[in-house]
């Protein structure tokens, strides 16, 4: 075995992203609200990980910390084994709202990342045009965002995130606002896209089907203050397709996720002061 291969396999042992003991609280009107209370989470290179949990348990806060938009009060965050202090701008992040700039057409929205990094607009446009078809945006390059359907806007926002060229992409309920049919179509599309891109992805979602179908592993968070309640590996074969959602293996995985999520949701309902 040549030594480089051993080295590479050794590097693969270091998680792409590793969070340990993350704590975060917000102070508001003199009261403190503990949101995350010691979250441990790791993501391997090229892995697809989902985070689910009851509403308000701190999923977005966790993602914001990974993106570098927030700093944890306690805990460590490492990328490729090194402390990730300067990670803001180095991690791909797609928020729930598409946040396309209304004064730019679709094409010029998608090239924001390269443009901000100093790539010339014409080169960035060339690169983006090559991906329009795969993102279902062909023919709409010159349209302003407000003319697009919700699904198209999300795809444009995802293309913007992908073109920024980061290894890790964080997705915060990217399909939450879409109708069920569009959502499942985009889930299938995202599956295909992810397997082609080889990116590391972390997805926050409310949708248990979505988490099960897409992920290698699913983290379930407790009701606020959020902790990791359980980590479930999804040992379904890849490539996956939408019709898997009716298979027994899928359904039993989904059932155990549902049970865990329901428990926490009930706790959140019973203890609304938390």
């Amino acid at each position: 075995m040549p030594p480089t291969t051993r080295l590479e396999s050794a590097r693969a042992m270091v998680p792409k992203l590793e969070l340990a003991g993350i704590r975060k609280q917000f102070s508001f009107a003199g009261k403190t609200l503990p949101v995350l209370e010691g979250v441990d989470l790791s993501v391997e290179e090229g892995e697809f990980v989902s985070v689910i949990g009851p509403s308000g348990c701190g999923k977005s806060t966790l993602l914001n910390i990974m993106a570098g938009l927030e700093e944890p009060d306690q805990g460590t965050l490492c990328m490729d084994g090194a402390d990730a202090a300067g990670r803001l701008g180095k991690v791909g992040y797609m928020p729930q709202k598409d946040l396309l700039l209304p004064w730019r057409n679709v094409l010029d929205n998608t090239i924001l990342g390269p443009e901000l990094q100093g790539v010339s607009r014409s080169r960035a446009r060339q690169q983006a045009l090559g991906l329009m078809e795969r993102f279902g945006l062909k023919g709409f390059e010159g349209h302003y965002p407000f003319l697009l359907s919700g699904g198209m806007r999300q795809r444009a926002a995802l293309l913007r995130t992908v073109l920024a060229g980061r290894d890790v992409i964080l997705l915060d309920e990217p399909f939450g606002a879409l109708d069920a049919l569009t959502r499942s179509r985009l889930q299938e599309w995202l599956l295909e896209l992810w397997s082609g891109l080889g990116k590391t992805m972390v997805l926050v979602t409310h949708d248990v089907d979505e988490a099960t179908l897409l992920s290698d592993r699913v983290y379930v968070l407790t009701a606020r203050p959020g902790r990791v309640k359980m980590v479930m590996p999804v040992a379904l074969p890849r490539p996956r397709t939408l019709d898997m959602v009716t298979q027994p293996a899928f359904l039993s995985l989904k059932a155990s996720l549902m049970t865990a999520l329901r428990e926490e949701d009930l706790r959140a309902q019973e203890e609304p002061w938390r």
Partner: protein
Amino acid sequence: MTTRGSAEARRGLPAARPRRRAWLGAWLGPAALVGAIIALWQGAVMAFGIPHWKLPAPSTIAAELVASRGLFLHHTWVTLKEVSLGFGVALATGVLLAALIAYFRTFQRVAYPFVIASQTIPMVVIAPLLLVWVGYGLAPKIIVIVLIAFFPIVVNTVDGLRAVDPDMVHMMRTLGASRWQVFIKVQVPTSLPFLFSGTKIAITFSVIGAVIGEWVGASAGLGYLTSISVPLFLTARSFGAVLILAALGTALFLAVALLQRQALPWHEAQQRRQALEET
């Protein structure tokens, strides 16, 4: 290539076809009202035999406008020069001040109180003083116009630069944007509709500013013309000058509105879309 504002991009906007008829309807009402007022005015002056030096009939004013067109043209040109120079300076200083106020917190604390205080000093006090300080030429008129017109530009533009969606700023930061890049690529475009609103007010104020400047001391201009015509009982001439001033202000306002529509097609279309969704 599909750059902003290219033909291809504009083709994407919703069709504006049913607007022609709406346009006609929107102008028919006001036109009829103006016509009625003029007719009533003309009728009243003739019926009661009001002397023309007290209240000239519309026909008398029209005759004066035609008869003295050379005179009116000369004074209109002077006023227009003052207005465009003064407004230009007001726009430049207003935008610069707004950018500095929105970008530098310390500058905001130092400068904004002065900007607001400048509006509390009555112009009737400043204008005569300006005469003492800088004389009778173009300069005092320009200064009066700038002092009146820069304020709506600063206030509106500062509000616009601050009206950004914080989530949009976060998104830009995750794409690696610096503070300056966020300012140029998000804050400035967000502020443009606000800037245009301020400009519409400012350009109208500029005409008023020119008249104030001329009233205090001048040798030409439409404001000057009204001020010398009234004591000479040349009331029709004074009315004619006021009419031209009103037309000037309206035309400049419409020009800015038209420019806004050309420059910000996304904003126009977005608003139309929103209005449609609300109904």
